[in-house]
């Protein structure tokens, strides 16, 4: 969530999700999971009644990169792999903004893996939604870092011989304070998860399972709708972990034993050998954000965001007094 915004403007009437659709129409393939995710973003923002001019939506490059263009909010379709860096700069400067970031699995866990790691360490208050379809769709279906070893979607010439990344295991070790999974065609769950992530104070990751109807013929809509064997019975392939009593939320972040226990439970879920996949929050903990820690180091930022620091007057004269800087240099 954004810190309290200084904007004198507030919504004068309730905002409908339809008003958060821009005039630009998506050019994704029919049946693409991107539609579901875009829709859920708009639904979540409307549900929270966030003023769209205080939302800054960053996307990477690829099919998912276009998502920002379809949402009626400030949007930046950035460079391949760099969306988290752009977003971090914007959030650092102006913590009043609600900063959303979205991109594909190749964008986030491949070319952008370095930023993925360090965004977790910094714990800026942002939400990162990864469109996880295991392929690079826009360039005709090459393997993304999440494609399992040995798989051969129709676009690959041979079975895949590289180990996949486990984004949740990586996120947990990097310090993400909210880690959740949802599914592109489960509109209700996805919307609720996005809302939870935005409301979470800190760096949130949502990995969204998503079919690519054109290039990934292994993880299709039908695949996700299948039933699989579990403890001798048939169960849905995707299920809500919450329904089975799983609770990944740390209630007391200062209790090291509880934190360790929750992390261990999350790792067990992440590396579960089950055929089915759990949706929901794997792990969540409330820790000081980057801005909160920055205030400790820089008292001048205690009651003032960096963007609000005044540095010139009404006549455009610079007002920064350099006396303390000069004094150490005078001879």
């Amino acid at each position: 969530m954004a810190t309290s915004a200084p904007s004198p403007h507030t919504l004068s009437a309730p905002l409908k999700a339809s008003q958060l659709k821009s005039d630009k129409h998506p050019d994704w393939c029919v049946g693409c999971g991107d539609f579901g995710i875009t829709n859920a973003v708009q639904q979540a923002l409307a549900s929270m009644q966030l003023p769209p001019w205080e939302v800054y939506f960053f996307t990477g490059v690829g099919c998912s990169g276009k998502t920002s263009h379809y949402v009626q909010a400030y949007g930046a379709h950035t460079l391949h792999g760099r969306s988290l860096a752009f977003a971090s700069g914007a959030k650092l400067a102006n913590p009043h903004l609600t900063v959303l970031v979205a991109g594909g699995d190749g964008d986030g866990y491949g070319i952008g893996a370095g930023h993925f790691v360090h965004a977790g360490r910094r714990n800026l208050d942002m939400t990162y939604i990864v469109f996880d379809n295991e392929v690079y769709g826009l360039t005709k279906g090459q393997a993304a870092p999440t494609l399992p070893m040995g798989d051969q979607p129709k676009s690959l010439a041979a079975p895949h011989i590289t180990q996949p990344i486990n984004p949740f295991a990586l996120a947990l070790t990097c310090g993400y304070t909210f880690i959740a999974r949802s599914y592109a065609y489960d509109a209700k769950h996805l919307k609720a998860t996005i809302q939870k992530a935005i409301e979470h104070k800190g760096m949130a990751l949502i990995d969204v399972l998503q079919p690519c109807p054109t290039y990934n013929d292994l993880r299709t809509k039908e695949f996700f709708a299948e039933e699989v064997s579990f403890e001798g019975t048939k169960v849905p392939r995707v299920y809500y972990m919450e329904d089975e009593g799983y609770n990944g939320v740390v209630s007391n972040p200062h209790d090291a034993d509880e934190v360790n226990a929750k992390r261990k439970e999350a790792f067990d879920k992440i590396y579960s050998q089950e055929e089915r996949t759990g949706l929901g929050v794997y792990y969540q903990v409330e820790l000081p954000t980057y801005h909160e820690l920055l205030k400790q180091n820089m008292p001048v930022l205690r009651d003032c965001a960096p963007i609000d620091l005044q540095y010139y007057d009404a006549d455009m004269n610079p007002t920064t007094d350099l006396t303390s800087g000069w004094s150490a240099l005078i001879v």
Partner: protein
Amino acid sequence: MTAMAPDALKAAIGAQTEVNWMIGGPQGTGVDSSATLFLRTAAAAGYYVFGKREYHSNIKGKHSYFNVRASHQYIRSSVDPIDMLATFDKETATTHGHEILKNGALIYDPKVVKLEDIEGLDPSVKTYVLDYDGMIKDMAEETGSNPMKLTIMKNTLAVAASMALYGVPLEAMERAFIGLFPGKKAKLVELNMLGAKKAYAAMQQYADVNDFEYRLAPMVNAPKENSRLLMNGATASGLGKLKAGCRLVTYYSITPAVDECIYLEGRPEYGMVVMQCEDELSAMNMVNGAATTGMRAATATSGPGFCLMAEGIGWAGMNEVPAVIFNYQRGGPSTGLPTRSEQADLMFAVNIGHGEFPRVVIAPGDMQECFEDSFDCFNIAERYQTPVMVLPDKVLANNTQTIDFFNEVGLKIDRGNLFTPTTDKPFENVDAAIATHTRFEVTENGQSRRSLPGQPGGIHWLTGDEHTTIGHITEDPAIRMAQHEKRYRKMEYLLKELPQDRQFKLYGPADADITVVAWGATKGPVLDAMPLLEAQGIKVNMLHVRLFSPFPTDGVEKILKASKKLVSIEMNMTSQLARLIRMELGILIPHKVVKYTGRPISQTEVISSLTDIQKNGTERIVLTYGH
């Protein structure tokens, strides 16, 4: 101030008016501290100083040295031969002994240096023994301290012995210590003065101490105490950023850019966030993200990091983002000479990124210009809504000199064309508040109103793709042409609007025999050489270029065409500015002076090369002085 040739000044005053001192030793043993003490002592005695720092890419152990020139006149460069060498170790003596002028001095400890090991040491050089260990032992006994803890006093002893020979009074050293140890550290003044007095007295025991050839005449018309600054370019750039209102600097640790970042991190009172990033891709794109929110933001880097920033700079060009990039040039290519000087990133900066987009490239030539450019670059970036690259170099970043106070009067902030929602549109309904803004409206001067996230009525999109006026992706040929042309039009206006002396400046007489074409830090040695060359009968002026993209073709062409003999002087192998001038104007600069050893060009080298060119018409001179 009108500079005089030192010989003329010396004749007028009847003693040396300028000295050139060197201290060296293994890195991490206090060479920098000694030099700082020397610089402060000489400044306290009223002299003008210039300090040149040379070091290896190494933390401890390798040879480093610091050269300090002190003068009765304002100076901005180094000279080559030294008149005094202070040493702690053998390597400094053997490496630099041959550089000592006739009748100069060597201060050494016979326990570690054998004079016969110093090749090329002129027999006229006077040698002075300094028993560091003995003096430290005495100090320890007198103060009841552990001698191990007083090892650092070697610096004080070396500088005090040097000052004794130069004839600079001990009182100046005391004032330097008071400046170095303010407040709670004040008790260190007494301890250091105890050491200084011992070393000073040791030199007085030499019968000929007062006859030292390079004894420095007391400063005539000394500037008032506390009327000048002693600083380097990294600090000047940092202060310029603070004054400009920049409140985010991102970086990935790299020499020599990191010095500016460390300086800024140490000044949290200004509210500047200094973000150490995971890499330069992040550093660049955090600046892009922050700059789109209206924050004045910059990144600081050096060659290898600058290479990684290319894609992000292109995005800033495409999205008209006022991003500022400081590239502190060092020796390249690749890791190159990490701690050494070079001006070899000019062609890269003016061509950085794929495709075509307007970019501003400027380079400061001295401390004052570091401050000016660091202040101005944000105004330029916001007015013309495009990335601005500033190219200082290691010479500016790490060299120290006395300068006048920077002029802060008359500075203005220019935010460019900003969208102001309160006056532009009323927000009586949600539809108006969430309406789309034409961020990339096609205008005559190419500047469009920039709305910032948080502003109602300002929603627009940014994308690396070609885009419509509201920022949506398009591949329409007509829109592509309109946007591409609009972006470039901003540069025509920049050339018309930016004051000419910020684009280029001609120094010296209009009717010179030689016109030097230079940029960046070579400004100092050329300006310092001009009066000496004139005393030799060679009239020299200098075209110092500060703006490289867009290139100020008209003004530069006029000066070049009015010149008798053109000489380019650059710290690179391929004369990059000369090549840029030929590319932009078709004018060939026939004489080229280059240096690519990674060591800065000195005043001495400028004089010798221009004398050679004037006498012999030499076309290419490769400079090599310096270890």
